[in-house]
């Protein structure tokens, strides 16, 4: 279980967020939705220890940690594939840097390539494949960390709508097939509705949780699910309210 208690972060004397509480139970898929620029990525930087939190505590599986650096894998909007490596070698990076058994890791990576629809592209370079393929490869690399917790920072927002839909079903596999615990940031409400067990709606600075939704309809979900549509209307209402409030 991932537990964030009273997380606080200042930047240049300005409060980005304070006393933020968030819990993701083991095997759950929680999604943070919020307007762009509200500080969602700063929260992730705090979790991964890139820019540590100023206050608050973190724990993973009841172990208190300074950061999730050695416990979480991380995927973001940019695919971050290295142009001098083939897709397979890119996927093997966590194995190479983490001193895993390369033979075993290669076998694992190849089967993930097959599972995520990249078979036959192992020796291609990132520049030779589409944005969707690159993000699939980034997803394989994320799984190759072999860590139980996954942080996703708008992983699909650089993709076109059609590609995004097909990759959303792969993100769902992280939970259903690979049994990971996932915390994702997105600003795509429909994406959140399709994937999340719980949605945290964040407000603008100082960032705080303005609403919390629990979604219990079974996955994979369809857009026309009435409960989802209700929640969607709720979320949009809330976001719009925040916007009007901001302008007023």
């Amino acid at each position, binding site marked *: 279980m991932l537990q964030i208690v009273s997380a606080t972060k200042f930047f240049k004397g300005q409060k980005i967020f304070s006393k933020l509480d968030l819990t993701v139970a083991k095997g759950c898929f929680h999604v943070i939705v919020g307007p762009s620029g509200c500080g969602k990525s700063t929260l992730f930087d705090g979790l991964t220890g890139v820019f540590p939190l100023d206050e608050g505590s973190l724990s993973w599986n009841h172990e208190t940690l300074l950061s999730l650096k050695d416990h979480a894998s991380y995927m*973001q909007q940019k695919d*971050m594939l290295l*142009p*001098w*490596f083939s897709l397979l070698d890119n996927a093997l990076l*966590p194995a190479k840097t983490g001193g895993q058994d390369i033979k075993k890791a290669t076998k694992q990576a190849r089967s993930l390539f097959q599972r995520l629809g990249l078979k036959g592209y192992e020796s291609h370079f990132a*520049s030779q494949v589409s944005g969707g393929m690159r993000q699939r490869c980034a997803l394989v690399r994320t799984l190759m960390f072999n860590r139980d917790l996954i942080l996703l920072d708008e992983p699909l927002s650089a993709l076109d709508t059609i590609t995004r839909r097909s990759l959303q079903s792969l993100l769902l596999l992280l939970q259903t097939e690979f049994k990971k615990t996932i915390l994702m940031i997105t600003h795509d409400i429909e994406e959140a509705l399709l994937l999340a067990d719980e949605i945290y709606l964040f407000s603008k600075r100082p960032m705080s949780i303005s609403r919390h939704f629990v979604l219990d309809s079974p996955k994979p979900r369809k857009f026309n699910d009435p409960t989802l549509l209700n929640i969607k209307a709720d979320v949009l209402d809330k976001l719009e309210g925040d916007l009007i409030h901001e302008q007023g």
Partner: protein
Amino acid sequence: MNRVNLLAVLFMGLILGLWEVFVRIMAVPIFILPPPSSIFAVALVQAPLILPHALVTLTEIVMGIGLAVCTAIPLAIVMFAKPTLEKAFAPFLVASQAIPVFAIAPLLVVWLGYGIASKVFMAWIIIFFPICVSLLEGFKSCDPEFRVLFRLMGASFFKTLRLLYWPWALPRFFAGLKVGVTVATIGAVIGEWVGAQQGLGFLMIQSNARLQVDIVFAAILWLTAMGLAMWWLVGILEKKVITWK
């Protein structure tokens, strides 16, 4: 041949043509300024005289480049890994470039002798700087987001260096190497001017004293050809190494 190459050749031809015409019309004596045609002729006819000297100079330059590469890479890595050391070394690096090589050339001959060592050293001083600095800048230009990714993967400095920083910096390294090989001739030739028994610089000084200006120019032609050839070879090496661009 593409358009740009064609233009370069045409421009070169124009300049050489003007030079040739000027010398012929003004009847400039051959010991003042020989026409390009006779320079090319001498460069070929006198090849048996010039080539052994060219070979010596080439050896000095190549050894200087080798030495520079072997020292610049570790130093750039050390300075990148420890910014405090970079601050400590930087003044010396800059000073090594600010002091004119002409000024220390006689000293080097005194210290290292008339042989090839003093010339290799001169070439090394000149080539070392652009390679080291461009490599260091290449390391530093690495996208911080990739550094974060490697940190999260738990990569050690040396693994990150091998898999990320080094390939990232390679284009800059080659840019520095290209500058290095083209200016390397300066170091070697100055070293030979000051004191040597062989080499193109030595040949130039000797021929100059005997008013054999055509030989001086022929030696310069060979030197230029060597510089161009090395530039070209580095370009080929770069294309072989950096396959992803």
